[in-house]
């Protein structure tokens, strides 16, 4: 696509499926998966009575 005539930022973002793909994969991976995974790793083994 030709961006010589500057379009508004939002429109450029919306017209770029590859950027959307990257953001769409990255955000849930960081916010849900990576953060959640770290939480699991940090769980301490229960002390046996």
């Amino acid at each position: 696509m030709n961006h010589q005539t500057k379009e508004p930022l939002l429109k450029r973002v919306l017209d770029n499926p590859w950027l959307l793909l990257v953001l769409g994969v990255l955000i849930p991976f960081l916010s849900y998966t990576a953060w959640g995974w770290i939480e699991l790793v940090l769980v301490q083994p229960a002390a046996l009575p």
Partner: protein
Amino acid sequence: MSSTLTATFPASPDPAARALTRKCDTTGLNVCLEAERFIKFNAVSAVVFLLIGGIAALLLALTRWQAVHLLRVDWFYRILTLHGLNMLIFWILFFEVAVLYFACTTPLNARLFSAKVAWAGFAQMVTGALMVNYIILKGQADVLMTSYLPLLAHPLFYLGIILVATGTLTGVFNFFATLYVARRDRTYEGSVPLVTFGATAAAIIAVVTLLHGAIVMIPTFTFSMGWTAQPDPMWYRMIWWGLGHQSQQVNVCAMVAVWYLIAQLATGARPINETVCRTAFLLYVLFINIASAHHLLVDPAVGATWKIWNTSYAMYLAVLASMIHGFTVPASVELAMREKGHTKGLFGWVVALPWRNPAFAGAVLSVLIFGFIGGITGVTLGTQQINIIAHNTLRITGHFHATVVGGTSLAFMALAYYVIPLIFRRDFIWRPAARIQPWLFGGGILLVSLGMSFAGSMGVPRRIYDIDQSGAFGAAAHLMLGVMGLGALAAVAGLLLFVLLCVGTILAGERNEGRPMADWGVASTLAGAREGSLADDHWAVKGTVALTAVFLVCFAVYYFANWKALADVWPVR
């Protein structure tokens, strides 16, 4: 009819593309023949899995309806596994691939990137789905669709799911490759149409979904083969819901795209503001997936900050997106209707809608059930504090039968009333029955959802074979299970009618080649009406504003009633 359809996607005449395409006799658009073939394959497979899931649904409902209590205990869990997978995964994913192949070709005047890739994806998906169903029915995978470790199924079960996931991913790849080629070759001008944009959002979410599927299923498969150690059950649950929750958000995007499409086909409605609609899809892409965390709200190994961030603050941006769509779809319809001259009062336009068009009726019911029942219960149940009084009760099942069944499945059924005449090029048989089908299915599922929700409010658990053993439930809970059971009879009848109509039409419907498809009915235009006449009237959508106010009041009442219910758990006197 044909004029509205043509206006939806203006076709550009490109002689080079002719050989492998045909011109649609109804819309004048170019249809890629390869895409058409795979739309057919995927749509037919989807309907077959819907049928399997529907038969299972009947058996389940007649078992949970305690007064009937049909199945034996082992078969209850077997059929529950079968139902979950065939409905939530197979019916939906196959249909979605069909939607994707449509959305990246015809509206863009483009051709499918590769038939070989499409074959590869389809073959994997079918093989996988057959493996899963075989091993479930053989009784070697009674693990429910979530297959939480340490429950263990036969390796074929996991392998089948992996194949379905990689097959879908292959189809999604084909979609993106087609988008790329279409843009490179400039088969269209400017931005992609809204339907394609919505499908792109769905495809992006599908990538996230299927990556999680691969991460969780591959080590579980190798464990089931005895090659590796057992993955941690808590880790399994977390990654699994990256698959299980998000596959539903793929549907949500596809469903919303279908709403816009059908609104336009049946009433000529155009989104009031395209940028707002697209931005709402963008919010889905960015924020809807993290809500997977609501499945872990009572799991001890993840902290409150993670839970609340992922299910509330950040996720409400995705809820906002749903509310934007829920407003703009009816608003655009209202505007179109008023411009057609249906201006009487607040709701005169509602009366004049093409209710006899099954695609339109199905789409309206889908918006209403998804928004009023699915959406309101979803936000409420997904609140960390409230979740504790609802987790693992039938309220959850009641919620998602309003979203994935009353919302998505009904929207997909509605779309079929256009897909079959346009792609299979046969007009529907038994049209009077088709006109009532959405009402039967939608009304039935409404009762199912309400019955489950109220029973759940009284504490009836989900995934339980026999609630009478505990002796804890009285007549009211049983009554609600009866409501669910009666609703299920209607919904399954609607589902079977749908399958019958589709199969009957594909086999024996009258061919419509060389002429436009038989019209289902569109909104009429009154004398003196002028398109665009209300473009500057800020109160042109007052009916929708009134409906929205009703929605927000319902939402607030339900939400606060639940906080009250939570507070009542520990009364301080």
